[in-house]
């Protein structure tokens, strides 16, 4: 397995070890230190993918994260990952990669014929073509487009790897480890600041990795940083977004360079970094020039070719032509020359440069004032066509590598995320960071500075300033690289060669200079509009290399300056981040924590069938055989109506309220009066929102003179406490009241049914449960099985009922003692479904009725509104619309047919005639009744109480169901309320 394009010496790879890998099922080998890109190039693989729209052959265009073209599917099976840039994929033993977006093979791609009709596929093609008929979109056009376009395929199986989140804080975050980043981190670190230094590459050094002359300085800087205890180095970590309040997001590729993560290790982690100051030393990205066929495999950024030679010891081609508008390309050309690449010519659009002499000294031809007008070769560059810019004949130069340098764009993306405005730097023809909007500063090439020594000095300054800004003023000096001479890039703004053919301004989304001009002609003159119309700069690379070319073409078409046209706003993410990383540990049942009642494991052991209600897990019903349907529910409900049942109601919100003014406070909180409640008594209360709509309900008990225990619904527990805190802190701070959530302190169980007293008398000690001593709404303390209990005589089922509360740790013991005592009386545990059945039969309201739209009057609670005294919502509750007699109001409904065959459904419309479409209201809650042996429910019906006795229809058009019902009082069971007082 030879690597024909590998240099014999040089670079940062370990030639003593070989790493086998596969690309498109062919076996190759590279070395530790390689990226997949450098290993492919070393093996002479030039064609690595097909383009998005035209399926044109594409090669490796860059040597970094800005890569637009060389995207592959990495790994196999469940770990397969699409759209991975070969230029950042670290090579490992056994790596498998497949080219994507081609069929049936990379070399022969059927869809490439779209290239032949491509002149009909211009900007806005999809918008214009696939509009009509509209019915075709979903069935025909979208599937067609999705198959033809799109990038790689995602794995079908669940990802076997773990991902996680990490939170970090620092005084100074430095992004990038080139000369500027290393210097900034060291300066800030030496001053004593807590520093995080993040680098997207697997090696620290940025551009220094291609500068052997500065290797010892790089190493000494890393050694110094490693020795600082408060400096954290994060290689393989891309800072992908800069958010409000100086929060930055980063993804660390912990194990992307390994076949599988380590035991108990994660694949990637997402860092949320709260930085007091940030130094953006993100470098600069070289940009290409638009000319016909500038996307052919073998066309490459000049700096990338140099990186492959110097860092990876790879010749990206054997015979190169360099096309440039600036002096940095000359250094790269000389590096290629030194690596044994024949540099056939430097085609320079400028009329003169002092660097030409260096080329001549190496016998490299320089053609000043010239331009590249085309490329020969389909799947790979074979020759380059050039001409003088002032006219003249086309000349063709044989070459297999065409290096392009159109100047450099400072990597301003992170700064742009903060909404800082960019500034145009005419000297380098590029946008540079403008005034900061957050606590950040840029340094080095990210600031438009060229040259290692000047970048290091800039980084040092930025590091000192950032540290000083947060109080660390004692930075120590350290050696900086020696100035390297002439760093002036002498960029001549030059963006496009105007010649016949496809000149790409976005390689990943296949946007050409002509597309931009067409968009302009069709009225998309604003850069943001042109971007969306053409998809220019919208691909995963966000136009990092060639985005400026499209802007320049648009500026040219508008006849305005690039500065005036501007660039589309950069948004997170700087480079793509996988969903898995963001999901982190929040997958499967870890999406949210499970909240368990103190009786949870009893339910589990005793065949509870669970339902998630919010975060809670609650037993729906109990069934050893895991029955489905109504049988277990009816069984449990009958036990309550006929004997006794026990239900876990620990989820009810419980708030301890203490203070000398509790009575006043509760009177203002509830629509009814609590200050008159006697110690040892409970009362049902209703709360309104400020707008007069019902907020919550529940019973509140007076435990002592200045102490109440409030219960809320399960769903509103936290909201009610927040509501109380808000009013106490902002409206009535003078009231002496203090709140404490005690939901978790208590296990609470409702014991209900005609035989409840008999059952409880068998286990409760220290409390007389007789009706005389402990009447309805009584509250008292006792013990069960040696455990303290507090018993509330309240009922949600309509039966005689006692709620037994015990400190949570005793929940199971008390529950089992009650079950034991109730056994002779036929006790059964009942779940949420039977609880619901019973409350609907009784006509108690719950979530479906307290739906945020209903008033106390709507629900028949007129009597609970006290005559005197203010309470929250009182004024708004009397708004005319809320008093409209035509409003839907709560009633009961019962199926006329008792056979159970035609079921009622929640959400059904109430109508006067079976076929009517004039809705009078809706069904809120339904159940099969054990008491009345038919379907029944609750409904909100216009002038409902006036219709009691009428027959209406519950219509459910989605299922073509119409059920005739009788309108009744909501209280289907025991309307006189005698049972609860028995």
């Amino acid at each position, binding site marked *: 397995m030879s690597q024909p394009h590998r240099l014999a010496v040089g670079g940062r790879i370990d030639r003593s070890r070989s790493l086998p890998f596969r690309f498109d099922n062919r076996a190759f080998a590279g070395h530790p230190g390689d990226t997949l890109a450098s290993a492919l190039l070393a093996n002479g693989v030039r064609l690595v993918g097909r383009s998005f729209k035209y399926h044109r052959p594409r090669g490796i265009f860059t040597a970094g994260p800005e890569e637009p073209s060389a995207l592959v599917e990495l790994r196999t099976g469940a770990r397969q990952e699409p759209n991975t840039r070969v230029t950042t994929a670290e090579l490992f033993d056994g790596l498998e990669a497949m080219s994507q977006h081609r069929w049936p093979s990379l070399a022969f791609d059927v869809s490439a014929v779209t290239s032949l009709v491509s002149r009909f596929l211009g900007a806005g093609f999809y918008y214009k073509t696939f509009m009509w008929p509209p019915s075709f979109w979903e069935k025909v056009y979208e599937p067609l487009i999705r198959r033809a376009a799109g990038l790689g395929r995602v794995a079908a199986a669940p990802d076997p790897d773990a991902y996680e989140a990490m939170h970090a804080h620092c005084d100074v975050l430095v992004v990038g480890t080139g000369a500027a980043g290393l210097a900034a981190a060291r300066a800030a670190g030496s001053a004593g600041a807590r520093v995080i230094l993040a680098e997207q590459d697997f090696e620290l050094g940025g551009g220094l990795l291609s500068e052997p002359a500065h290797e010892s300085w790089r190493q000494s800087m890393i050694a110094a940083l490693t020795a600082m205890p408060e400096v954290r180095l994060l290689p393989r970590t891309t800072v992908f977004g800069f958010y409000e309040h100086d929060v930055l997001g980063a993804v660390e590729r912990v194990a992307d360079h390994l076949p599988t993560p380590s035991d108990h290790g*994660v694949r990637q982690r997402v860092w949320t970094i709260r930085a007091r100051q940030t130094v953006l030393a993100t470098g600069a990205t070289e940009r290409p020039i638009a000319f016909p066929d500038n996307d052919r495999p073998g066309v490459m950024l000049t700096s990338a070719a140099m990186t492959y030679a110097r860092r990876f010891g790879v010749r990206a081609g054997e015979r190169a032509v360099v096309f440039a508008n600036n002096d940095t390309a000359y250094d790269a050309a000389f590096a290629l020359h030194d690596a044994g690449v024949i540099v056939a010519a430097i085609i320079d659009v400028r009329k003169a440069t002092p660097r030409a002499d260096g080329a001549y000294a190496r016998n490299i031809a320089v053609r000043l004032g010239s331009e590249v007008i085309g490329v020969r070769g389909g799947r790979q560059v074979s020759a380059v066509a050039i001409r003088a810019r002032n006219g003249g004949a086309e000349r063709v130069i044989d070459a297999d590598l065409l290096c392009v340098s159109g100047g450099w764009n400072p990597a301003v993306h992170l700064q742009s995320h903060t909404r800082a405005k960019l500034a145009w730097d005419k000297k380098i023809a590029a946008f540079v960071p403008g005034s900061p909007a957050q606590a950040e500063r840029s340094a080095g090439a990210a600031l438009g500075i060229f040259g290692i020594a000047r970048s290091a000095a800039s980084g040092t300054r930025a590091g000192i300033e950032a540290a000083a800004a947060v109080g660390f003023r004692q930075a120590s000096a350290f050696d900086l690289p020696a100035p390297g001479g002439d760093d002036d890039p002498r960029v001549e703004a030059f963006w496009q060669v105007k010649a016949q053919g496809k000149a790409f301004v976005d390689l990943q989304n296949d946007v050409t200079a002509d597309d931009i001009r067409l968009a302009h002609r069709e009225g998309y003159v604003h850069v943001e509009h042109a971007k969306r119309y053409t998809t220019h700069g919208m691909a995963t690379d966000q136009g990092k290399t060639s985005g400026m070319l499209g802007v320049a073409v648009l500026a040219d078409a508008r006849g305005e300056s690039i500065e005036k046209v501007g660039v589309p706003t950069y948004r997170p993410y700087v480079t793509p981040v996988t969903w898995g990383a963001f999901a982190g540990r929040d997958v499967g049942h870890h999406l949210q924590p499970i909240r368990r009642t103190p009786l949870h494991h009893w339910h589990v052991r005793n065949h509870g069938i669970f339902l998630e209600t919010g975060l809670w897990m609650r037993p729906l019903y109990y069934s050893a055989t895991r029955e489905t349907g109504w049988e277990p529910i009816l069984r449990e409900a009958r036990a309550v109506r006929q004997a006794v049942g026990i239900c876990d109601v620990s989820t009810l919100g419980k708030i301890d309220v203490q203070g000398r003014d509790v009575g006043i406070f509760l009177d203002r909180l509830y629509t009814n009066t609590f200050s008159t409640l006697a110690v040892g008594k409970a009362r049902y209360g209703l709360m309104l929102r400020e707008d007069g709509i019902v907020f919550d309900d529940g019973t509140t008990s007076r435990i002592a003179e200045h102490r109440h225990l409030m219960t809320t619904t399960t769903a509103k527990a936290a909201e009610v406490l927040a509501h109380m805190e808000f009013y106490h802190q902002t409206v009535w701070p003078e009231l002496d009241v203090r709140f404490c959530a005690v939901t978790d302190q208590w296990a609470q169980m409702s014991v209900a049914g005609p035989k409840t007293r008999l059952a409880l008398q068998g286990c409760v000690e220290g409390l007389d449960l007789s009706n005389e001593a402990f009447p309805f709404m009584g509250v008292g303390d006792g013990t069960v099985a040696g455990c303290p209990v507090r018993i509330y005589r309240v009922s949600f089922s309509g039966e005689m009922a006692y709620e037994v509360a015990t400190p949570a740790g005793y929940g199971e013991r008390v529950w089992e003692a009650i079950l034991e005592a109730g056994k002779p009386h036929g006790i059964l545990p009942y779940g949420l479904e039977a609880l619901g059945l019973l409350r609907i039969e009784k006509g108690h309201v719950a979530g479906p009725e307290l739906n945020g739209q209903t008033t106390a009057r709507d629900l028949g609670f007129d009597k609970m509104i006290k005559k005197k005294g203010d309470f929250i919502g009182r004024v708004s509750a009397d708004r005319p619309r809320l008093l409209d007699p035509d409003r839907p109001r709560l009633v009961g409904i019962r199926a006329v047919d008792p056979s159970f065959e035609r079921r009622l459904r929640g959400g059904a419309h109430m109508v006067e005639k079976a076929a009517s479409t004039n809705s009078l209201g809706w069904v809120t809650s339904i159940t099969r009744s054990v008491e009345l042996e038919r379907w029944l429910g609750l409904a909100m019906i216009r002038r409902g109480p006036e219709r009691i006795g009428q027959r209406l229809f519950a219509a459910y058009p989605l299922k073509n169901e119409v059920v005739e019902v009788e309108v009744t009082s909501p209280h289907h069971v025991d309307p006189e309320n005698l049972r609860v007082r028995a």
Partner: protein
Amino acid sequence: MSAPERLSPFGPEAKPGRHGAAGGTPVSITERRVDIVQVTAGREAEAPFADIVKDATGLSLPPAHQAAFSGEAMVVWVQPSGWLMIKPRGDEGALAKALAGVAGDAVAVVDQSHGKAVLRLSGARARDVLAKGCRVDLHPRAFLTGSAATTTVDHITITVVQVDAIPTYDLILPANFAEAFLEWLLMSAAEFGCEVRPPT
């Protein structure tokens, strides 16, 4: 009153043993079986109450975002004029009763011994374990022995108290979420290895 043994809110699966990666320097996780009473003083009651606590426990009420220790007892600030008093487990309700007896009407005393659970997390990597879910800066420059913060981790509201410089943290949790939080903690500690110790 002496009541029967309480059931742990951490569930039947929380057994002592080794979890996660082997070797290295594992963190330890211990359920602390304690009594917890939440006290909330009215504004004018705070000063006299501080004296009462000092007399009763020898502890000064800590200022905001702080905890005070005395042997195995601890007082943690949790809200303005509000503290958690934590002591090794005694008779059911005794701590609350004792405090209520001396505190007077202007201080609300609420027993949370069953409503809250405490995990002690200790080890050189404890900070890194918490950083996977805790947004509070736990760096020694920002969070010291005696620091306390109430925050959310894995969607669960917890109070973090630094107990010593190892570092060791006491994590005060809502009991209904104790099992879910322990699951999160074991998952987050897995890469360093983790020793679940018998409850103390």
